[in-house]
């Protein structure tokens, strides 16, 4: 499709309709609550973004070894990694989150002496559970992706490195991993958006993210449409930013190979 396609007549009409719809919404609907809650929304937005970014970073760090051992072995570790991926991918993340927070969390008080340790202040916060659940989930999905990526690097490229006497770890660091990452890059944008869509679940374990704030707005104002539309718009914008970021990144990398 040509680049100038954006200015085809029907697209201009569609954009105009969209703008008109937005304007109609802005003018006809009840946004009186917005100023009052704006600070809360901003703060919660930060929570959402922080959880998203941190769980993605930590998740990828976990996913790399999880993907790798499934390709290289040793067997027991490969088996363990595979089980982990199956477990994570086979159960709803909402359930995983509840299991961690209400399930596991409810067992801690029974451990004698735990309350006196340094770890206790962390255990009583809600966000560490949200972070851990999101991270594990992302690691489970990306571990599978990384497995495919590691496996997909042509053997010859690794043999070329082996034949030059490179240390196995150097091969991993310099050849295998960069190549695997390069292969997953085109799909990673989609995975980030999936992770973004998982973040609102943290609201169910007492973490106040964007979703939770809008829940509260609905509860307190009893306005139904407007907060939901606004919320959808916020996620659309976040997803748009992710997509755009990856577009820019992809343009920077060699497009072939």
């Amino acid at each position, binding site marked *: 499709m040509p680049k100038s396609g954006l200015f085809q007549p029907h697209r201009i009409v569609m954009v105009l309709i969209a703008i008109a719809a937005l304007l109609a919404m802005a003018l006809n609907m009840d946004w009186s609550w917005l100023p009052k809650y704006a600070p809360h929304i901003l703060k919660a937005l930060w929570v959402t973004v922080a959880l998203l970014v941190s769980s993605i970073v930590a998740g990828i760090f976990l996913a790399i070894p999880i993907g790798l051992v499934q390709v290289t072995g040793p067997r027991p570790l490969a088996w363990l990694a595979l089980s982990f991926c199956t477990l994570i991918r086979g159960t709803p993340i909402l359930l995983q989150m509840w299991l961690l927070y209400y399930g596991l*969390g409810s067992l801690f*008080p029974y451990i004698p002496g735990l309350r006196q340790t340094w770890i206790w202040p962390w255990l*009583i916060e*809600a966000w560490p559970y949200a972070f851990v659940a999101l991270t594990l989930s992302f690691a489970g999905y990306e571990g599978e992706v990384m497995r495919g990526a590691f496996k997909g690097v042509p053997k010859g490229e690794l043999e070329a490195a082996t034949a030059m006497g490179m240390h196995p770890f150097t091969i991993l660091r310099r050849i295998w991993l960069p190549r695997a990452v390069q292969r997953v890059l085109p799909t990673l944008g989609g995975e980030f958006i999936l992770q973004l869509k998982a973040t609102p679940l943290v609201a169910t374990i*007492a973490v106040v993210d964007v979703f*939770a704030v809008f829940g*509260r707005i609905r*509860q*307190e104002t*009893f306005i139904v449409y407007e907060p939901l539309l606004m919320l959808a718009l916020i996620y659309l914008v976040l997803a748009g930013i992710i997509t755009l970021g990856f577009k820019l990144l992809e343009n920077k990398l060699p497009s072939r190979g």
Partner: protein
Amino acid sequence: ETVRIGVATEAYPPFATSDASENYSGWEIDIIDAICDEAALDCEIVATAWDGIIPSLLADKIDVIAASLSINEERLKVIDFSNKYYQTGASITAAVGSGVEPTPEGVAGRTIGVQSGSIHQTYASQYFPDATIREYQTQDEANQDLFAGRIDATLADVLVLAEFLSSDEGTACCEDVGLVANDEAIHGLGIGFGLRKGEDELKQKLNEAIDAIRENGTYDEITAKYFDFNIFGE
């Protein structure tokens, strides 16, 4: 015609809890039964997430909210209420010996759990600016976290907390530190049945039935099964 009575899916003992067969039981359920009998209404219990109970009423998914919903100004703007059918205060429960007190100063720097969307959340955010408020989907989860030591205190209906304090866990960990100061604008005029505006006929039937069971002793009979004091208030 059947009247759909909306109750919250989340456990709210001793007022309403569900068992494995999705049979709801508790004081509030018994009262609804009695009222429906009295008013000769064909009632059906419909469980709805607490978080969406008012939208459900407005979206015509249910006709009556019977979920310990306080009558207050904010809500009166959107929905209508029957007369109150019980009224209790809000109190704070905290770990034994924690030193928490039911005043703004007494909770400063502490973490307080409240049920998201409840009047207690509104109260806490207005009166306890120095405390950290943590929102739970259900009061039950707040209680669990109080027991687990993940929050310092919880603010809720005194009767709900009494139920918790009488459980094994509650007895072990926590104590009632007293009622918070009343604010009628928030705490309202007691607990009533929520109705869509304009349903005056239904509202009148409910009001008459409330009066009737109060008069004929059914109300006290049911209450005696759960509580050893008067919960109707003034």
